[in-house]
């Protein structure tokens, strides 16, 4: 089980990093449960950080090729996806060393209209870094994390055709 060996869930990572002299932290989660923007943003808010930027991807009622979408359904290997999201976060920290907290949560399974499919929350002393890093995280997640989306409508469903070959986080 490659993910078990190479990936660790966010909470564990958090505890490990807390003992370092410059405490930073990651919270990565791929889950069938509803996502909470408030949880991620509150968790990312730190007394030494002036800026918290969040991105929420939400299920919309249309796609590039289809109207009347009523839900999305995501399929993945949770451990493989979490490992790859950790690589996105690690690369973001290399590029923006001022980052404090970085949280990325992604849904699997069925997600209803207007619900969040993915949330990125980033804190930094500087807002430019927070904006740039949040954008890098979502842009890179979309092309580097194994995840497949079905569009559901009344009476049918199909794989999304907005797909791209998988690449590595540091190649973005």
């Amino acid at each position, binding site marked *: 089980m490659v993910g078990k060996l190479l990936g660790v869930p966010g909470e564990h990572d958090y505890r490990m990093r807390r003992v370092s002299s410059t405490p930073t932290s990651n919270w990565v989660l791929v889950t069938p449960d509803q996502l909470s923007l408030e949880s991620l943003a509150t968790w990312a808010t730190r007394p030494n950080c002036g800026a918290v930027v969040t991105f929420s991807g939400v299920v919309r009622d249309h796609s590039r090729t289809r109207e009347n979408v009523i839900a999305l359904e995501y399929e993945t290997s949770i451990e493989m996806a979490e490992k790859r999201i950790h690589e996105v976060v690690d690369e973001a920290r290399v590029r923006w060393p001022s980052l404090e907290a970085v949280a990325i949560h992604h849904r699997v399974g069925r997600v209803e209209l207007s619900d969040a499919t993915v949330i990125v929350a980033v804190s930094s002393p500087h807002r430019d870094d927070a904006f740039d890093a949040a954008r890098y995280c979502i842009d890179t997640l*979309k092309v580097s994390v*194994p995840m497949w989306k079905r569009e559901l409508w009344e009476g049918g469903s199909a794989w999304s055709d907005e*797909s791209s070959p*998988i690449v590595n986080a540091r190649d973005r």
Partner: protein
Amino acid sequence: MARLLLLGPAREAAGVRNDVFEGPTMEAVLSEAVTRYGAKFEAVLEVSQVWLNGEPANLETAVESYDEIAVLPPISGG
């Protein structure tokens, strides 16, 4: 035996999510998989990438027992 993990459209085309194969190479495993699952899977495989134990692999890569091979069609997360 090595484990084959089929995800998204590859899982759908193959009809299974997990399967087991003998090596000795990625090429041997994948051509046996095409035989087992048929033309629809072959079409998906052609646009997919393959990983061995979480790292990109190619047709020459050796496959041993307990290895995990993943077939990754183009992704659509986020």
